């Protein structure tokens, strides 16, 4: 089939509706990377095999990620005419039990997390059956899903299901009803800002590029997502690839480009696979290629797989990487919108930015602008991870506070521990202390506080996290990822890493702290590209907010969090130890000895202070002496 017109889209929509809401039993398993990492594939197989064994008529689908990764693997059971029920932390055994129950016409309550109503329930109504509605769970109640609108709800391999949810409607509207200028105007008025980190107004970027009288032009989707500790873009690419493709075609139409690229991070094989399939499917249907939807507009997409270089997320480095060179940034201006890929005008946008575009075109600029705050319209997606009770992917209106996110949605610290800090923006961002958690989230507030919005990484840290060690970790990362072109970043990160290593080894001095700050400020100011210019942020922000921890390291040679190996010692409290021997078996250094049922001891000569014993001891008998 070819989709040549709006009515062809309608046909596709009908097909999508029939698989989204079939008149038979349907079970969906969340099979994005995070689901797979916790055994979703085994769950899927168990469901399939058990259903076959019991002759249960069943439509089994693999969907993407619903965001509540804490509860993965997630399985949704939909019986015709009933509200679907979501099961959490499903194992293969539980999957078999589920099928057994369903075969008897029953629905087990064990493990059921929530129902997902398909119709909008009347306000204030209580769902029947005692289960909460998904959107009433604390994890979801403050979320507003725009970018993640389809994630986990549709089969990412089905373009029909995407269309059934309103997909490609925006493309039809843009290509058939709007001029490029009107499209740009809509995006501009919506107030959409780039979600790759810097927050540059997207409509403005398109306007600049459109105005350059040079052809050909290019559009690039930046799916390099280099922030270690963040996976928003992966989720969108894996769970809803067509939303990105649609956004990219619209961007191409707006600026007058006929060739697009999607650059996907190498460490995301499943995302590469899913977008590749989605592009092929769109080509097959004629949603890519010549004369799209009969509009006369031609557009093609090439997928480029990155190869493991954080710097390639930086736009000029990404361009040079596509061109076939090393990922080496070049000075700006000229900006890519004026001179980008092969020196031609090029728009680069983040995955989430592009996935938002179709919604703006369909629902209008005013609607989008009404969400969030005046200067920070719309929603932002965070990957809430680290030492937080509920980990997962969350999308909230801009303007919510950090506390709303970490305590409200995240449920506070892991295992009830006190949260000490949060790191936003990854290696380019900073660590903000808990006392700043009432800050509303916006590009400006986070920057003023010494961090950045970044593309959505949010790593929560508790009292067991050493902030000096965290700074050393991030500088170690940027040092390894620096392209090495410019002197401040190449030499400066290396030197900062040396100082921080010295401090965490208990060999630092007070002067080191001054030197560290001096070098950090220089690297920030003098580096060529954003990598170097932001690399010192983790250092500067920890120096600013957690100076006491630095001072404990250099003055008292003490690591308050009990992390830095040279400054701690492990010992077993003989009055608590019951001699179970677990620590002895798990110690990678063979440093623990003891008879069964007798108190064990640690040989400090052999101990590498990895703290595995501390983690595994079932009775809490291992003590970290700081």
């Amino acid at each position, binding site marked *: 089939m070819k989709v040549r017109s709006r009515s062809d889209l309608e046909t596709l929509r009908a097909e999508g509706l029939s698989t989204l809401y079939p008149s038979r039993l349907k079970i969906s398993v969340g099979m994005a990377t*995070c689901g797979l990492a916790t055994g979703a594939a085994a769950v899927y197989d168990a469901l399939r095999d058990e259903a076959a064994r019991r002759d249960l008529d069943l439509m089994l689908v693999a969907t993407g990620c619903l965001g509540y990764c804490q509860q993965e693997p997630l399985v949704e059971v939909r019986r015709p005419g009933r509200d679907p029920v979501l099961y959490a932390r499903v194992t*293969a055994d539980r999957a078999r039990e589920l099928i057994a129950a369903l075969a008897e016409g029953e629905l087990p309550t064990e493990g059921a997390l929530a129902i997902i109503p398909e119709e909008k329930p009347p306000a204030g109504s209580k769902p029947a059956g005692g289960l909460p509605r998904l959107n009433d769970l604390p994890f979801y109640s403050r979320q507003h899903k725009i970018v993640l609108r389809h994630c986990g709800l549709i089969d990412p391999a089905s373009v029909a299901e995407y269309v059934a949810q309103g997909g490609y409607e925006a493309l039809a509207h843009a290509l058939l009803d709007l001029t490029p200028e009107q499209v740009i105007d809509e995006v501009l008025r919506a107030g959409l800002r780039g979600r790759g980190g810097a927050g540059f107004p997207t409509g403005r970027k398109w306007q600049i590029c459109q105005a350059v009288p040079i052809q050909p032009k290019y559009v690039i989707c930046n799916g390099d997502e280099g922030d270690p500790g963040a996976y928003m873009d992966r989720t969108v690419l894996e769970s809803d690839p067509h939303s990105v493709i649609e956004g990219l075609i619209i961007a191409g139409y707006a600026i007058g480009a006929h060739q697009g690229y999607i650059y996907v991070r*190498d460490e995301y094989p499943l*995302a590469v696979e899913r977008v590749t399939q989605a592009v092929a499917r769109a080509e097959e249907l004629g949603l890519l290629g010549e004369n799209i939807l009969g509009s006369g507009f031609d557009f093609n997409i090439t997928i480029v797989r990155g190869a493991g270089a954080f710097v390639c997320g930086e736009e000029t480095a990404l361009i040079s990487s596509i061109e076939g060179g090393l990922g080496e940034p070049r000075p700006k201006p000229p900006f890519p919108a004026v001179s980008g890929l092969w020196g031609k005008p090029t728009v680069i946008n983040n995955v989430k930015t592009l996935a938002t575009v179709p919604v703006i075109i369909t629902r209008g600029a005013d609607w989008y602008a009404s969400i969030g705050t005046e200067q920070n319209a719309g929603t932002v997606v965070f990957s809430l991870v*680290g030492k937080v009770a509920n*980990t997962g992917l969350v999308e909230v209106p801009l303007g919510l506070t950090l506390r709303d996110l970490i305590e409200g949605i995240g449920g506070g610290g892991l295992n009830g521990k006190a949260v000490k800090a949060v790191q936003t923006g990854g290696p380019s961002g900073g660590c903000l202390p808990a006392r700043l958690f009432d800050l509303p989230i916006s590009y400006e507030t986070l920057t003023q506080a010494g961090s950045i919005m970044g593309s959505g990484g949010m790593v929560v840290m508790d009292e067991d996290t050493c902030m000096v060690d965290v700074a050393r970790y991030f500088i170690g990362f940027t040092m390894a990822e620096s*392209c090495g072109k410019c002197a401040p970043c190449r030499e400066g990160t290396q030197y900062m890493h040396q100082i921080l290593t010295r401090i965490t080894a208990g060999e630092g001095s007070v002067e080191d702290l001054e030197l560290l700050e001096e070098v950090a400020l220089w690297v920030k100011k003098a580096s060529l590209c954003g990598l170097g210019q932001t690399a010192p942020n983790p250092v500067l922000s920890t120096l600013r907010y957690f100076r006491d921890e630095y001072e404990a390291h250099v003055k008292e040679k003490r690591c308050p969090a009990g992390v830095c190996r040279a400054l701690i010692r492990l010992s077993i409290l003989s009055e608590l130890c019951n001699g179970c021997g677990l620590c002895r078996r798990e110690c*990678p250094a063979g440093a623990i000895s003891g008879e069964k049922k007798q108190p064990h001891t640690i040989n400090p000569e052999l101990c590498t202070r990895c703290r595995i014993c501390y983690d595994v001891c079932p009775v809490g008998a291992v003590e970290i002496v700081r």
Partner: protein
Amino acid sequence: MPLIPQPPPPAGGALLTRLHAINAEHGYLPEEELRRAAEELGVPLSQVYSAATFYAAFSFQPRGRHTIHVCLGTACYIRGGEKLLEKLESTLGVRPGETTDDGTFTVETVHCVGSCSMSPVMRVDGDTYGRLKADILPRLLRRYQTEAGGMSDEGT
């Protein structure tokens, strides 16, 4: 304009795609394959070599049958990825970048595989394992030692 005339640049992404293909086929980048790629794509060999040595995804050494990537992304680091690595090192007797003597495993570290909510995470070949604890490593490794490997029955 350079003195020596230059061929037109390769198509967008062509060099990276080619390097990935070579790396996937051989497990590393053999010299003669890089020379051939340069010739066929019309790209200077120096550029091919620069790219090949720039990116972390490419290797110049043959690898073991299975590659283990221990994630040391921020989330995994904060939640004990290093301990996992340390346990793996002592179990297999290799350091990151090295291959076990029997050629079964190559151990690498990686900065995030995008499963941060399941941290700490490890990837063996294409399979990702989340919510790992050091004590289940031996069981997990055994699966790859004995057969071709694959996802567990129950997940982890």
